[in-house]
């Protein structure tokens, strides 16, 4: 059946079905709010006390999802930038109508507060894993923005740490809590598409993420910008405003300078994560090939292929994925729409078309799990597997050849070069 035709039928079906059912939707909420004691005012003792770490533009969005939650009390923010500390305090204080949001330059001061249950980590990617594990060891649960880790080693240690410390970790992979993505992944996971053959991720380019050591500039006062704290676990380099305000400092898997690779992480931590969900969160692929004709093909142990497409998004908005089985296929993207090989796959279900946002569902999932101690959808093990797939793909891109990964030993097979790229030393005094 032509894709075009099926898409239209489905869109119309969803629209008409929704209106016929009084716009009933499949809500992604896991546990009824009444179970969580949310049917009414939430007493202070039952609120989740939250602090923020590194709340910039993305973090500000996350914050806007946390603040309206009745069972959240946001009480503190830590940021290396004085300006941001003030801005976040103003937002929080305005929301609560008081002046109680405390500000800190060093996030460890937030972690030292025994009244805080959970933290929102929305620093740059350089800090995500280190801050998350420091928070876990301090007894905090956390919602941590993506990409969560900088390399394979960090991914493994993250999953281990969260398990050992029994903390609730939610990666900022909010699409795991969006109904249409969830539905598409469910079709793949439960065999509705037949035996799964290929899952496609669209990381929107696989170019290098530049970082490195730029020309020294005059360093601001520590209270204004704490450069040392900004560098954190990254190797030392002098202050440079472009590194401070540039896009995603040290994101590229530690591949600095003009090295290739690293670009898979930006969107890959979302779309590869969805592919991982589609393959039922199994261990990451075992083989990653060199890029060819704009695609990098990875292969899972069971033969299913994970295809990283370098260019172009299928016309479903950003972060699209496609899952192909022996008997059917499905595509979904941030437009909130899905395209299916057959309307039968909907099986009478109604799936709300809500686009790539809001992340509120994902935040709600996190908060519920803080209370139930269940693993949230973007848990550390799931994030670990998805990130390993991205990092291994980056290494194949960097080396421009095939690499094979052994999930039992977490090493590349007979590949000294690739194995050396699994980790990167942290600057003193930071450790995982």
């Amino acid at each position, binding site marked *: 059946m032509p894709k075009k035709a099926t898409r239209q039928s489905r869109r119309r079906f969803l629209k008409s079905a929704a209106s016929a059912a009084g716009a009933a939707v499949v809500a992604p909420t896991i*546990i*009824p709010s009444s*179970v969580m004691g949310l049917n009414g005012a939430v007493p202070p003792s039952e609120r989740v006390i939250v602090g923020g770490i590194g709340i910039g533009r993305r973090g500000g969005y996350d914050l806007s999802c946390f603040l309206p939650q009745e069972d959240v009390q946001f009480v503190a923010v830590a940021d290396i930038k004085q300006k941001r500390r003030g801005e976040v305090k103003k937002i929080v204080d305005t929301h609560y109508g008081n002046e109680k949001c405390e500000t800190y330059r060093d996030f460890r001061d937030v972690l030292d507060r025994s009244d805080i249950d959970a933290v929102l980590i929305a620093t740059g990617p350089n800090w995500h894993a280190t801050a998350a594990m420091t928070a876990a*060891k301090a007894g905090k649960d956390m919602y941590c923005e993506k990409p969560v880790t900088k390399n394979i080693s960090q991914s493994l240690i993250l999953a281990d740490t969260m398990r050992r410390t029994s903390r609730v970790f939610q990666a900022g992979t909010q699409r795991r809590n969006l109904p249409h993505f969830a539905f598409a992944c469910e079709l793949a996971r439960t065999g509705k598409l037949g035996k799964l053959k290929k899952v496609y991720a669209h990381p929107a380019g696989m170019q290098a993420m530049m970082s490195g050591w730029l020309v020294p500039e005059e360093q601001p006062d520590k209270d204004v910008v704490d450069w040392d704290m900004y560098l954190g676990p990254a190797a*030392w380099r002098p202050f440079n405003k472009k590194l401070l305000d540039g896009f995603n400092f040290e994101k590229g898997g530690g591949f600095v300078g003009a090295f290739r690779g690293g670009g898979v992480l930006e969107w890959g931590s979302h779309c590869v994560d969805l592919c991982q969900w589609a393959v039922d969160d199994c261990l990451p692929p075992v083989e990653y090939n060199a890029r060819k004709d704009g695609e990098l093909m990875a292969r899972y142990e069971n033969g299913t292929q994970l295809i990283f497409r370098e260019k172009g998004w299928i016309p479903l908005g950003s972060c699209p994925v496609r899952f192909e089985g022996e008997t059917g296929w499905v595509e979904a993207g941030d437009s909130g729409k899905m395209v299916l090989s057959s309307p039968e796959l909907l099986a009478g279900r109604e799936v709300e078309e809500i686009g790539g946002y809001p992340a509120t569902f994902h935040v709600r999932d996190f908060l519920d799990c803080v209370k139930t101690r269940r693993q949230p959808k973007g848990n550390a093990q799931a994030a670990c597997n998805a990130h390993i797939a991205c990092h291994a793909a980056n290494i194949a891109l960097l080396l421009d050849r095939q690499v094979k990964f052994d999930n039992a030993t977490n090493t590349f097979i007979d590949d000294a070069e690739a194995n050396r790229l699994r980790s990167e030393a942290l600057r003193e005094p930071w450790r995982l």
Partner: protein
Amino acid sequence: MNTTKRLTWAAVFLAASIHTFSTSAQAADDATVAAEKEQELLAVLHSDAPAAEKAIACKGLAIYGSSKAVPDLAKLLPNPQLSSWARIALEVIPGDASDDALRKAAGSLNGLLLVGTINSISFREHAKAVDLLAKKLHDTDAQVASAAAVALGHIGNNAATKSLRAGLASVSNNVRSAVAEGCVLCAERLYSKGDTVVAAEIYDDVRNADVPKQRILEATRGAILARSQKGIPLLLELFQSKDKAMFQLALGTVREYPGNSVDTFLPAEVTRATPDRAALIIQAMADRPRFVILSAVLKAAEQGPKQVRLSAIDALRRVGDDSCLSTLLEIAVGSDAELAQAAKETLGDLPGPNVNDEIVILLPTSKGKTQTLLLQLVGQRRINAVEEVEKTLGHSDKTVRSAALIALGETVSLEKLDVLISQVLAPRHSDDAAVARQALKAASVRMPDREGCAAKLAAALRRSSPDSKTALLEILSVVGGKKALQTLATAAKSKDPQLQDDGSRLLGKWNDLDVAPVLLDLAKTAPAEKFRIRALRGYIGVARKFAMPERQRVEMCQNAFNVATRIDEQKLLLDVLKLHASPQGLQLATKAMGTRPLKPAATQAALAIAQKLGGKGVNVKELLSGAGLDNVKLEIIKAEYGAGASQKDVTVLLRKRASNLPLITLASTSYNASFGGDPAPGVKKKLRIQYRINGKPGESSFAENALIVLPMPE
């Protein structure tokens, strides 16, 4: 060569090196190539190159470095700027040389650099460093001592474990937490190797130590899991703890607990706990689907505090089966709306291989609310029970009949579609018509064989009443496909005014490019003018909203211009051309300027298109030449070029370039060159112009280097 250029060169060199090495690796002698790269990188370290270059060289040595590189890297360990870069390589270079160098450096360094070195020893799990690290546990610098403790935990051999256990009692207070962390790491290692007895002892050591609560929690979790069945009493103790953190630890740990020995104890904990805690315990029970005691969850759903019942009903959604059906049905038709809603949601998803069969069995003997609910479940769960459902279509209660129709809408196959078609054409009760149509629509749009479905609907059209005809046509329009399109086209050209109206209306909303030729034909040949106009507007709408090659879009617009007799539709076409600016569209717009009543709008459109194209680098001057643009009186009032506060007044210059056309050409395609310099280097700039055309004021801004086509003021 300045620093930046040298750094860039170094990075590019390194990137190229990796590529060259990698692609030639199969054919060449890898070791030789790697050695050459290592030599080149070491040469950078030996040189007086800036620290930036040496940093990048360290990064390269992380891939190519061998023991030969270790001495040079080790020399950088005391360097505050390069120590961390050197450790990137030292951490991953295989062999004893790196271990020895790091250990040796740890003997002489102090402060943060020592902490970093210890962390690298930790990463490498260097067993020979245990003695050194054990001594460092008592270092006066708490950061050093803590790093040593965690490093010992990562090494985790007997000696490391022994020193850490001893350290729990002997280290200073501000180091004890790290020692406990190290102990837990050692215990984890032992546990994973099967030495659960010693692991449990170490966990107990930590539990009994004066350490932060998080360490106690970690050790308690470990102590429970390491003891396996013997850990259950401790786990149950946590469930009853007044300490919220301990209770939460129990909730997390029980989900990890291997085997089924713990599950038999959990129902008692539900009974013992306060309702808010009981609700959470039930959720944890349901997260152990292989071992959950279902009868306990079901009992909690039946009676007790409402919060607990809601949790149990929700849990059944994941772990229930057909044995829960009657209870859930009873709750779902009960008087408590909240419980009823929860039960309905669970029934929709209730797992178990026999649930659907049970629902079908219950259906014939059910009555009232239960019967309606069962019919709803047939639809929701898409149970194949058409014959059973069909029997209820004659029920005296409209609610039951409606539920039956909706269930059929969700379940009938193409072969059985006539069941619903007949309900639309001749409903047994007249007030069922609307629901029947809704059900037929739901069924039709989910049919995999839509051509087959459309054929059935089209055949029904011939024997239906006028009202039903409209309904069927509407359903056909959402089914889509060739047959449906053909049927709507035939209706639009029939002799029946109602069918003409329905057909043209639905074709106008058709959501596919395939409708274009049908609409164009209708725009020319529809029986009534109002339908011809409607078809033309629909055709223009297709040209406007669908993705297609611009040449095809312009061709559609030309076709429409040929048919359009009214200025309203002609203006709509100009809007399409403006929205999808293309050189062909500009030509068509300039051609439209030859039609007198359309000239002002066409001129406006042509200029708008030209401006868009100019911004994309298309040479629009050529396209506009000979377009017959009317002369205008253009006055430049004020013009500024720049960004933010850095603006340059270019009024005089633009006045000199202004002519009697709303188009200004500059001396160069570069604004900077034309305006005598860059007012804001490195920043995106804009040109803002206030002007008058034929006395009417206008204002417009242009992206840097865009063609200056001034919109005609309204």
